[in-house]
């Protein structure tokens, strides 16, 4: 049947395809590049934590020097899993890429539909584990941000420092507003009356969660921009804007 909606219902899925698609293409390029991901003292968030011996700026060189490919490949699974199984991103890509449905009251693209009742979509149910790993990675990103204010042993602020700080704040916000986290800190309870700490945590998580989509998009865009900035610095296209020496 022809949909009766006459508004610009296709606009939202189109924007999602463009933004998400651009990010994916860019991050594949940047992640495989295996170069230009470090510019003293900034490490691209796509390459953190750096766990190969060959890394320009290794955190934990647990992978020996036999690994010659991009170190980003080894860690990409964690943030990727977190975003792919994220309840908000699921909404967005089921709509924009799967067209199930492309927009409300617009027919599905496919004839049959089983939702998340079958493999591989059953894996979506393990979002909470992706959350835990993504949160562990956040520790490294905070460490990177701390280092980004250290210019050869002296405190300083460059545009890159601020970008890395913004990036890690947004990523933390994105994790803190996660639906699974909201459940784990207190949402599983039926009565909060004798659990005031969990109630408070749950209330905060709830407040953040109502803005989960905004955290998701903002952090995605800023991760890309941060990498791009460091990449351009490293390639010598830009010079870092120093605010405090």
């Amino acid at each position: 049947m022809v949909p009766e909606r006459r508004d610009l219902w296709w606009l939202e899925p189109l924007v999602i395809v463009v933004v998400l698609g651009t990010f994916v293409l860019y991050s594949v390029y940047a992640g495989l590049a295996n170069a230009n991901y470090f510019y003293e003292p900034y490490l691209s968030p796509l390459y953190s934590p750096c766990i190969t011996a060959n890394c320009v700026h290794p955190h934990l060189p647990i992978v020996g020097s036999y690994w010659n490919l991009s170190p980003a490949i080894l860690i990409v699974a964690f943030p990727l899993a977190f975003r792919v199984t994220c309840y908000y991103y699921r909404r967005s890509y089921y709509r924009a890429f799967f067209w199930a449905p492309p927009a409300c009251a617009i027919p599905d693209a496919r004839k049959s539909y089983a939702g998340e009742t079958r493999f591989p979509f059953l894996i979506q149910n393990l979002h909470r584990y992706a959350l835990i790993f993504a949160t562990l990675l956040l520790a490294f990103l905070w460490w990177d941000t701390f280092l980004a204010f250290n210019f050869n042993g002296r405190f300083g602020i460059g545009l890159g420092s601020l970008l890395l700080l913004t990036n890690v704040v947004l990523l933390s916000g994105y994790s803190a507003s996660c639906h699974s986290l909201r459940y784990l800190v207190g949402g599983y309870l039926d009565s909060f009356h004798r659990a005031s700490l969990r109630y408070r945590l749950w209330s905060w998580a709830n407040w953040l969660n109502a803005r989960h989509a905004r955290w998701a998009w903002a952090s995605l865009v800023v991760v890309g921009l941060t990498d791009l900035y460091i990449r351009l610095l490293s390639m010598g296209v830009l010079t870092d804007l120093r605010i405090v020496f």
Partner: protein
Amino acid sequence: MKIWRGEGSAGEHVEYVVPIDAGMVVLDVVHRIQATHAPDLAVRWNCKAGKCGSCSAEVNGAPKLMCMTRMSEFATGEAITVSPVRTFPLIKDLVTDVSFNYEKAKTIPPFKPKPKDPDGKRRMYQEDVDRVQEFHKCIECFLCQDVCHVIRDHEENKPSFSGPRFFVRLAALEMHPLDTNDRLDLIRAKHGLGFCNITKCCTEVCPEDIHITDNAIIPLKERVVTAQYDPIAWALRRIRRTGPALPAPSVPPSKEPPSA
């Protein structure tokens, strides 16, 4: 205004031209057409104040309550298309057979409270009821059921999927501070929670602004994960289990409805 007219599945949109007054809603115009042009035009309505959820329809393709859709939203002279909700079988004009919902309602294990406090009173606290009160705002307009693509576009899923309205209902029971029935396995197996791919259209159309997806469906999914999919939670349960397993909740006897 172009209104769907027809008995059973056959029909077409018929155009009516009527004058409108300030402040009118779509339902007012439908009533005016009924009074002046088409006395047998079938339409459900009751309160005309967005409180009973009877006058659900699709206005220019968007699922809405006709009583809460103001004519001032549309450009002057624009023809407005009003169609019956699409997910349910047509009866006549704007009236559809929504018995799907009443049949699903019969399959939900009822509220079963825990014992009273020793002084014979029941105590619940506002912070405990706030969350469930949001779900109790549901007026059963079934717009979420209408817009949900799982049954809107896939008729074959109807037997195994209860729809957003009943996830709201199940969430209200599951999170009720006094309730003791455990419905999590039923929610997955019988009500088809896994069919939901959280595309949030139910939330978008809800006239009561219930955050169906974020506050009802996703927390239910998380609870089902703990009960069914999470290996650590499963292991913890095995270690902690001291008493017998909870008895399965009883499903109320489902009678065949009297039919027309």
